[in-house]
């Protein structure tokens, strides 16, 4: 698991992070191309804008977002997730993400036991 701190970029009136999310408990998880478990309804990073704040901070496409500023992201609707990321009064979002490679590493070490 990784902690990623993204500083939002001001673009006129908007604060943007520079990535896109997919998923949510109200979404169809089988369409998630990034999840290993096709029933996983978590929030995944589907796109990272080149050179944007997210990429700079180390976020990668396919990351699963577990928390945003302490808010759980594993059991939220798509819209709730989006809202948590786009709070107007927040300049910085701290994400807790898992990355597939990390998961695999964990899994492998487990298998060895």
């Amino acid at each position, binding site marked *: *698991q990784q902690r990623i701190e993204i500083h939002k970029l001001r673009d006129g009136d908007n604060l*943007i*992070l520079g*990535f*896109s*999310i*997919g*998923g*949510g*408990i*109200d*979404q*169809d*998880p*089988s*369409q*998630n191309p990034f999840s290993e*478990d096709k*029933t*996983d*309804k*978590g929030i995944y990073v*589907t*796109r990272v804008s080149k050179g944007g704040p997210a990429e700079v901070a180390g976020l990668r496409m396919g990351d699963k977002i*577990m*928390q945003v500023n*302490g*808010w*759980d*992201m*594993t*059991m*939220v*609707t*798509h819209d*709730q*997730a*989006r809202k948590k*990321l*786009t709070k107007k009064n927040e300049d910085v979002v701290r994400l807790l993400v*898992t990355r597939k490679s990390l*998961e695999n590493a*964990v*899994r492998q*070490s*487990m*298998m060895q*036991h």
Partner: protein
Amino acid sequence: MMPIDRLADMEEKLRILEDLNMIYIRQIALSLKDSDIQKKIDYEIRMREGACKLLAACSQRDQALEASKSLLTCNARIMAYMSELQRMKEAQVMQRVARRSFDAGPMDDRSPCKGKVAISDLRIPLMWKDTEYFKNKGELHRCAVFCLLQLGGEIFDTDMVMVDRTLTDICFDNTIVFNEASPGFELRVELYSCCSEEDYSAGSTPRKLASKLSSSLGRSAGKKMRAALEPGACSTTSNGGGATILLPVPSVPGPKYHLLAHTTLNLSHVQDSFRTHDLTITGNEECSYWLPLYGGVCCRLAAQPHCMTQQMMSGCLRVKLGGEPQGWTNVYGVLKGTNLFCYHQKEDMEANVEPVLTIGINKETRIRAAEKDPHSKAQNICITNQYGGEEVTHTLAADSREDTQRWMEAFWQQFYDMSQWRQCCDDLMKIELPSPRKPAIVTPKQGSLYHEMVIDTSDDIGTVTDILAHRIEEFELRAQLGSPPHWMALFDEDPPRSPHTHQHLPPHSPSPRLHSRQPRSPRCHRTPGLLSSNASLTSDSDSPASISPCFRQAWSPDASSSSGRFRPRTLSLDAKLSTLRGRGYSGFRCNCQPPTASSVSPRPAQTALSCSSSTSSSTSSEGSNSQESDLGFSRPSSARRSLRNLRAKLDPRNWLQSQV
């Protein structure tokens, strides 16, 4: 219109009548000393009560339709059992009478063997015309339909199918097998239909109540029952009213099915392929439940008489082979279907070794007992067949007179059976057994009540789900890998404390597998009190649903030491989780015994810490490790699911992506 208190009064009377009914029914069953039927009746009555309650409680249309269908089927079965009881009672009485008068005539008659009858691939063509049948042109007129099939004392219902203008045929995929049918069977097929747009109010209830009360119980009930239960009248009527004398249905508001069409099939319709039969259509265009039927039903009706599938006779025989008068060979003969198989020895038959000789036994065969052979004690049996243009005779002998007699009897019985079952004995018809599925009485999805609860997103839930998330992370991985406990060390600072935790588990937490759960892991700030009280968690989390039970297990050791962060809103959390998932789940069960079945599944079994708000699921209780919420439903029809999946796939909206 009746004043409301009189309505209640009548309902009360109806209930009393119903109780009297049940007593009467049970009396008959008891007097016949047939606990088998009694058990069946009791079961159906319970199912019926369940269906009524469900019908009253649910609000979703397809649930109500399913419940109504169950109700109708239960009623039909109860009626059938009742009539069977009546017949048995009569037979008993007749026997006593017969014994007294030494009238032994009919007793000696040969009776044909029974058989299996299967009906499958029912298809009822429809004939839609443009505007004729719709009250509101443009609106899609939809009906829910299903078939009720009755043969002898067995009644089965097919799945329910929604029919509208887009369908050209009503198809039922079910294969229904009746096991003990006699050749003179009558298979009654009834098509029930219910309009899917109706308002489900019991508007005409008072009238129905009145009519039911007028046919009161008493000495006359017996006579009425007999009259009502004649074969023709055995068909069930709509569950709302009509001539159901003995079972006044509690007037439950809800969808009511009506008989749309029916037909009766018998042996002459049996064929090893599809055939079309005429349907008698009841109802007309004015009825809400009307569907434009073409007038026929296409299906496959097959029969397997036992004489074709079972060994009717077997034993040691001697066969004369070759021309020599003394050339007897010992064989083990088995009479089955249209053949007499002669094996070298009995073990060969069991080992599926080819028989040394196969003699055809069919309609053309002639069997006679020959003149007494001077060399043996018993008569020979000569079996003559026509093979091609030639007559071939086999001579067999049994070991004793009694054996010879028994073989002859078996042959006669076989001939008789074949004459009774006619075309079914030409060749063995294939019957595909339906794959094991849940019993026909289907309890609709539980959990709709959750759908109706309005949940506001409160911050409390956010924090709780936050905590859940921590657990989910851990358990998600663990559950996926089948939980070797050691790797906990990867995440937690404290070393696992395996042996101890096990003891702390309260009696009704199962799954010793999780004993490595350590109750204190600093990383995961837990609120034991929170989850242990009213732990009405449903396993609705996304990741393998094994999560919540793990929760409960984990928390239970600390239940006593509840911290101050106890949050009283667990009920709403429960409901929120259900609604979030978007599907009902049949609650949780209170396993008050060490679960035995749970050890089988790789996932921990489900437990409940308290049984407070459990929705009682009448589908399987213990041991059903229905972690996949699909199993929690009684039977989401696979058609519905696949349709949902298809819609989901086609709808691009279903996996939204948002830019942030």
